[in-house]
């Protein structure tokens, strides 16, 4: 009975979400404090996955963990059919819930003296630290994420994380740097996450330093992109000046 119910609760076509090979990829639309965002997972899936994630430190991101989650919440073993991707659905649950938990984990007072880069660094490190309990299984998880059929959903989630971090850091830029900022932060986060899987230092201090260095590099690149726009503008202005000097009426 619970199975048929759960199957009926399976996500159908939803307007904000596209199904890329059976995995939901949701893109954020209009956000407002008056309209809470819809939950990322349907209730049954959320219940099972929330329980399954407790088994990950022991069992890893595996089908066994999903099954254990279903069993300990009183669902039939067959209800794992709700998760056609098994381990990847569990990984995605981890990614989504940790991203959404970030706003409660790191909060900046309104009069915070921290600069934007400092805030971004704090947020990135906080998000990485959320992987610490399952860090032993994270390399395997990264392997699942890089499988061809999982790449679109993984990249979308990486982009969502970068968006969340810039938003929480209080970045208000809505020009083209919106895109470069998210792309750079995604790259920094992805490389730091990989670095962390081999980090043996106490409290992941090396990872933190790695993040700091990489953000410093990104800042330089970002400056270069802005510099390029100025450069083009400068030459356009010069071109006009030259044309005037030649007697053109411009």
């Amino acid at each position, binding site marked *: 009975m619970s199975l048929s119910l759960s199957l009926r609760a399976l996500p159908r076509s939803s307007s904000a979400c596209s199904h890329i090979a059976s995995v939901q990829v949701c893109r954020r639309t209009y956000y407002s404090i008056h309209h*809470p965002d819809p*939950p990322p997972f349907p209730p049954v899936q959320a219940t099972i996955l929330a329980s399954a994630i407790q088994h990950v430190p022991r069992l890893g991101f595996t089908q066994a963990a999903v099954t254990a989650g279903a069993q300990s919440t009183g669902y039939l073993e067959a209800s794992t059919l709700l998760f056609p991707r098994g381990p990847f659905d569990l990984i995605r649950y981890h990614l989504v819930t940790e991203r959404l938990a970030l706003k409660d984990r790191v909060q900046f007072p309104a009069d915070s003296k921290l600069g934007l880069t400092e805030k971004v660094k704090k947020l990135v490190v906080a998000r990485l630290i959320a992987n610490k309990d399952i860090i032993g299984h994270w390399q395997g998880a990264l392997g699942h994420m890089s499988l061809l059929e999982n790449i679109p959903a993984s990249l979308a989630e990486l982009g969502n994380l970068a968006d969340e971090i810039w938003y929480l850091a209080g970045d*208000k830029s809505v020009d083209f740097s919106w895109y470069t900022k998210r792309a750079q932060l995604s790259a920094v986060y992805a490389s730091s996450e990989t670095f962390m899987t081999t980090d043996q230092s106490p409290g992941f201090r090396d990872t933190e330093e790695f993040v700091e260095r990489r953000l410093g590099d990104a800042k330089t690149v970002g400056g270069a992109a802005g510099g390029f726009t100025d450069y083009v503008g400068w030459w356009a202005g010069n071109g006009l000046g030259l044309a005037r000097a030649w007697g053109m009426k411009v």
Partner: protein
Amino acid sequence: MSATVVSRGIVSRQAIARNGSTLSYVLRGAKPCRNHTRLASTQAAEDHTPGEPQTKPMTTLTEAQRRFLDSALRVNQAGELAATLIYTAQTPPVVKAHPHLQPLMKHMYDQEAGHFKTFNELLAKHRIRPTAMYPVWQAAATLLGWTTGMMGKEAAMACTEAVETEIGNHYNSQVRELFKWMTELKERGEELDPELAVLIEDVKRIRDEELEHLDHAVEHDAKQAQPYEPLTKVIQYGCKAAIWTSERV
């Protein structure tokens, strides 16, 4: 050349009309997503201790309405970006030839800059992605402003007339849509959330100011531009194509 531009413009207009009708159809028949049950609100409720007063959402936007606002605000920002750049590029050549137009150009620019600021703030607040065509519109708008400015006062005013006609229509359709939401909610006895109420007023005010620019342009000999028809048509269809593109990317 202009023929291809025009024909492309017609295609895009049909696409807008088609899209408009499907969108309104979606909005009329919109139901909350099946898989979007209110887990977030139950979580929020759990976070609240029972004694604490809990702010209740006045309305729930459907997914289609969210997407409408998402693309509408993105287009508006792109439009105001282009408008500020057109005036910035037009002002030096126009004012050089006709110094008495300086206050008018400044007045129109200042209003556009105000609109641009409004939509920038709205985009940041509602976490809406700016258009990916941002640099393209920057270049196109500057080029358009500079070219029409160089063609003379009349061409510059004809450009303003063509752009503001399109933009006026565009804002009008948004006001109509938002107004429809408001009446539907009133029928159900609900209230529009304060942000949306402000948004409707903002869009109305901005539309009126754009139409005021249109009147200024016509008063200042826009109709005398040579060649009037092709110039305004190309600009109008260009605007339509830009709106269509910015709604999507």
